[in-house]
C-alpha cells in the first residue's frame, strides 16, 4: 500500500469538496488523507455480515406533513444574512457557461 496520495488525487478531492489548496497543503494532504483512507480500507477485511443496511437508527417510518402553509420570512430577513445582495435578491458572481443547474 502506498503511503501517499498523488498530487492529482488530492486536487481531485479538493475539487469535489470545493476547497482551494496551496502547494504546501497538497503535500500535507497527500500523507494525511492517505492515512484516513488506509483506516477506512479496513472495512474491506470485515466478513460475516448480512446484506441488510441501516441508513440511520430510525424509530419510525416517515409521518407525512399536511399540505398547509406556515410562516415565511420577510425578504429583508432573507438577504440580511447574505454577504451580497441586490434588492430582494441574493447576489453571487456571474455564473457563466451554463444557464441552469446540472441537477434539476
Amino acid at each position, binding site marked *: 500500500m502506498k503511503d501517499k496520495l498523488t498530487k492529482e488525487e488530492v486536487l481531485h478531492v479538493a475539487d469535489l469538496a*470545493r476547497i482551494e489548496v496551496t502547494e504546501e497543503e497538497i503535500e500535507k494532504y497527500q500523507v494525511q488523507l492517505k492515512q484516513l483512507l488506509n483506516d477506512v480500507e479496513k472495512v474491506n477485511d470485515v466478513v460475516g455480515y448480512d446484506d441488510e443496511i441501516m441508513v440511520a437508527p430510525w424509530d419510525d417510518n416517515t409521518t*407525512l406533513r399536511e399540505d398547509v402553509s406556515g410562516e415565511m420570512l420577510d425578504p429583508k430577513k432573507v438577504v440580511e444574512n447574505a454577504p451580497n445582495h441586490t434588492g*430582494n435578491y441574493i447576489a*453571487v458572481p456571474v455564473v457563466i457557461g451554463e444557464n*441552469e443547474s446540472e*441537477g434539476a
Partner: protein
Amino acid sequence: MSKYIPTIGIEVHVELKTNTKIFSNSVNGYGQMANSLTNVIDLGYPGTLPTLNEEVINLGIKAATVLNCKIRREMNFDRKNYFYPDNPKNFQITQNATPIGYDGYVEIDDNGEKKKIYIEEMHIEEDTCKSTHRADKTLLDFNRAGVPLIEIVTKPCISTPEEAKLYLEKLKELLFYTDVSDCKMEEGSMRADANISLRKSESDPLGTKVEIKNIGSISNVKLSLEKEMARQEEMLDKGEEFKEQTRRFDSKLNDTVLMRVKETGNDYRYFPEPDIPTVIITDEMINSVKKTIPMLPDERREKYLELGLSEINAKKIVQNRSLSDYFNCLLDSNINHQTGANLLLGDISEYLNKHEKSITDTTLTKERFIELVNKITDKTISSKNLKDILSKVMEETSSIEEIIKSSNISNITDTSKIEEVIDNIISANPESVSDYKNGHDRAIKFLMGQVMKETHGGVNPAIAMSILKDKLDK
C-alpha cells in the same frame, strides 16, 4: 427517408400543484416578489431539517397510476451532491435508488397507429432556486427552491421527433387532467430534456448521445430533435466523430447550441438521505388517491364519439378541461349531444373567451343548458336568436323559456304573424309560386329567403318553412 435510425429518450420535470413546498411548509407559488415565499428550510439554513408533504406523495401516486407505473411501497430519498448557486444546500433531495414509480407507459396515437412509450421511472425531488443573470452578477430568488417536482424518464424507445411531440402532448394532458401539475411550459412548471443518438441499423450499438436541455415548448422539442438529427446526420455522413455532449435549443437561432461536452460521468455522490426515514405507501393511500382520478382524456374522447360527436369536436372539447368536465355532467341527459357540443364550442366558447370567463363562472346551470339545447333542437331558437339572447343566458338566472318570452323572439314564433308575412309574399311572387308547383325546388328556397328578409331573420325558419309549404300545397 433518412438512412439513420434515431433513438430518443425524454426526461420531463413537472412542478406539482400543491399548496406548500415538498420539504417545508412555505407556499408553492409563482410570480410573487423575490424571496417572499421562503423559510429557513428552503434557504438551507444550518440546523434545518426536511419534512415531507403528504400531497406530494398523493400526486406522485396519482401520476404513477395514470402513467401505468408500478408503485414502490417502501421508498427512501437520496442526496444528490453538487455545488451550484441555485442549489441551497448544495445537495438536492431526490430519489435515486427507489423512485416512487417504475415500469410504466403512455399510449400515443400516431396517425391512427397506437404505440406505447415506455417509462423507465418517475421520482420525486425538489426544485432549485431561480437565477437571473445580469452582466456583472447572478441574482438568486429562492421562491422556487423546494417546489415539488416529479421527473419522468422514458426508456430510449422513441423513434421520431413526431412521437416525442405526441408523447409530451399526451403526458401533459394526463398530468393536467389529474391536477398533478399546471403543465405550463412558459412558466416552467413543465420542462423537457431530450436525448438523441443515431445509428444505421437496429443491430448496431447506440450512437453517441446528445442531450438537449430545457426546451421551452412541445413544438420546440420536435423542432430541436429534427435539427439535431440533421446536424448529426451531416456529421456522420462526413465521417466526423463527436463527443457525448449537452446542447440547448436556441429559439432565436432556431437551432441547437453546444452547452458543454461531457468529460466524464457526473459524480453526484448519491447516498441515502438520513433525515427522511422510509416512506411507506399503503393500499389505503393508493385507493384513496385512485378515487380522486377523474375520467381520463382518452376515455372522454371515446365517450364523445359514441354520443355522435365529430372527431374534431370530441378532440376540441377534451382540449378544454373545464368545458369537458361540464359536458361530462350532460352525458346521461336526454339531449342532442352534437348540438350541445356545437353550442359549447361555438357561441358559448366565443362568449367565454371574450369575457375571459370559465363556464362555471356563468349562470348557465346544467338544467338551463339542457333547456337551451332542447330549444335549439326543436328550432324554437335560431342561431340568430341565440346571439341576441346569449348574454342573458350566460348572466341571468331566469329559465330559457322566460328569456325567449321577454325577448322579441316570442313574437316571431307567433304563427299568425308569420302567416301574415307569408301570405303577402305569396301574393307578391306568383311566378315563383307557379315554378314551385311545376316542381322547381329552388323556388321555395327563394320564397323562404324573402320571408327571412322581410322578418330580418327573426323568424324561426322551421316554423316558417312548414307554414310556407302548407300554404303552397293548398
